[in-house]
């Protein structure tokens, strides 16, 4: 983001501090979160949001986990668009469950491919994507972004999935360089798609590296700098979710979270102790 005199041969440097994330997201924005379940969730970025006063977010996630649960528990979500929210082997997501049952938030449930199609339509700048997913299911009854239609070719019934164009994608990667290439060594989930669909992408990285290091393993690059707006170095940035090969999920912290999130009162204490600090 600099192009000073005498630095004409220098490439863009997108490094930013964790705290400056607050200036990149506004209340009411639509954000999409990468990773899946208990894997490589952008927890450092999400926790920073909770420390800010940003609220009324529309949160999009194909496979939500503690990232979504934390934002719901902190009361920052106006609308949630999802195919799954859970803690995988560790069980159900307590704040998600409570918010669903108390009807405090608008929920839009899709399937995995319906969410993919919505983001794909966003990335392609078209209003919808045709899919077969959801036909015959009850999703068509409860999800207003799905409309049945007849294919102009062949007359088959299909579903139009309304495009999602997030304002910001928040993703956690293993390595990133200052210009914004992001490398993911484990399962990429839908992170590359989230980056293509969002108006801007902010990466947190276990480690910020020299571009030379990226060049050593170009096949590990999942996020192109074209999509990246900011890079934040955040070692341990996936929190208690896993970040292969840096660390596995931290079961004792997960269990502590689940225990603390079992009631609203306890969770306020958890936020104060672990997030707001």
């Amino acid at each position, binding site marked *: 983001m600099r192009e000073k005199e005498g630095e004409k041969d220098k490439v863009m440097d997108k490094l930013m501090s964790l705290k400056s994330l607050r200036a990149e997201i506004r209340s009411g924005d639509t954000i999409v979160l990468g990773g899946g379940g208990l*894997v490589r969730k952008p927890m450092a970025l999400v926790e920073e949001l909770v420390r800010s006063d940003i609220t009324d977010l529309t949160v999009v996630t194909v*496979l939500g986990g503690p990232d979504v649960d934390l934002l719901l528990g902190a009361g920052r979500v106006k609308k949630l668009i*999802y*195919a*799954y*929210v*859970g803690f995988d*082997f*560790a*069980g*159900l*997501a307590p704040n*998600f*469950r409570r918010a*669903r*049952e108390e*009807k405090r938030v608008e929920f839009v*449930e*899709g*399937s*995995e*491919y*319906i969410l*993919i199609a919505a983001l794909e339509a966003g990335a392609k700048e078209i209003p919808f994507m045709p899919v*077969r*997913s*959801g*036909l*015959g*299911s*009850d*999703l068509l*009854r*409860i999800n207003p972004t799905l409309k*049945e239609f007849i294919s102009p070719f062949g007359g*088959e*019934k299909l579903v139009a999935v309304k495009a999602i164009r997030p304002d910001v994608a928040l993703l956690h990667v293993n390595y990133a360089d200052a210009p914004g290439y992001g490398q993911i060594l*484990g*399962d*990429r*989930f*839908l992170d*590359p*798609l989230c980056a293509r669909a969002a108006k801007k992408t902010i990466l947190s990285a276990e480690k910020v590296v020299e571009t030379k290091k990226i060049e050593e393993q170009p*096949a590990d690059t999942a996020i192109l700098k074209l999509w990246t707006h900011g890079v934040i170095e955040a070692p341990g940035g996936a929190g208690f979710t*896993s970040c*292969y*090969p840096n660390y*596995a*999920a931290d*079961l004792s912290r997960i*269990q502590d979270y689940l225990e603390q999130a079992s009631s609203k009162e306890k969770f306020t204490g958890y936020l104060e102790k672990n997030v707001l600090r």
Partner: protein
Amino acid sequence: MQTTNQQEEYAPEELLISRMAKEMKGEMVGGAATYCSMVAVKLAQSLYNPDLIDMSGGLHHFDSRTPMAFLAAESLGRGSAKARVTWEELFGMVFRQKFIVWVGPAQIDQYGNANISVIGDWNNPKAALIGARGLPDDSVHLKAMNYHVVDHSKRSFPARVDFVCAVGFGEAREKAGVRDGCPGVVVSNLGVFDFDEASGKMRLQSLHPGVSIEEVKEKTGFELLIPSKIPETEPPTKEEVDLIRKQIDPLGLRFLDRMPRANMKDYLCQLIQRESELFK
């Protein structure tokens, strides 16, 4: 092959896994969404179907003989995976029917509609579960939907599911003109079930050893089609049980699928302890 007949010689999970493994035929991806089905994929690849493809964590076709890991799961396919695949490619495999899937539903009804999203009215939930996940995709694209249920009861086998995530047989399927992804086999802890194509209704295929037809009727929330002759489900062989216990799942991940919540915390702690001993 020597068979074990006494009930104590295998766990209910091991019977389920053995029966599921026998369904996985052809050069297909064994899609595993539950621990029991992961074990079944590995058992099938080891004993019955060397062409079966094991895939998880973005890694495609790795060696099934490597023991299953819990927290270290992502590192296991390394070294024997043939490819890294993206989620877009993964759905490409779903659309071309290259997946054999096993789902563990919260509810499955007489027409094979399945629910993992919510108990009660979706708009006014009694209990929110996890969301529809991939069921609305799989049940309109794959060749068949297979299910396994570890706690067969009137709650898990109601007359009608509270929310249709995977579309079964019946009016909704016909109206939408969906041909693919029909319900295939349901393996529960009591028996094996399939569906009568004409009526679309669930039918008893076999009873597990020691289970009576009365017990199945008692624990099912609708009237099953019952054939005049009911065979007994073949129990797992000693070879299968040994392979499951010693080689594929020495940690005991298969028991997580029906672990009561109260015991879960301790069991997970033990798992991690055993894992650190096994893999380090």
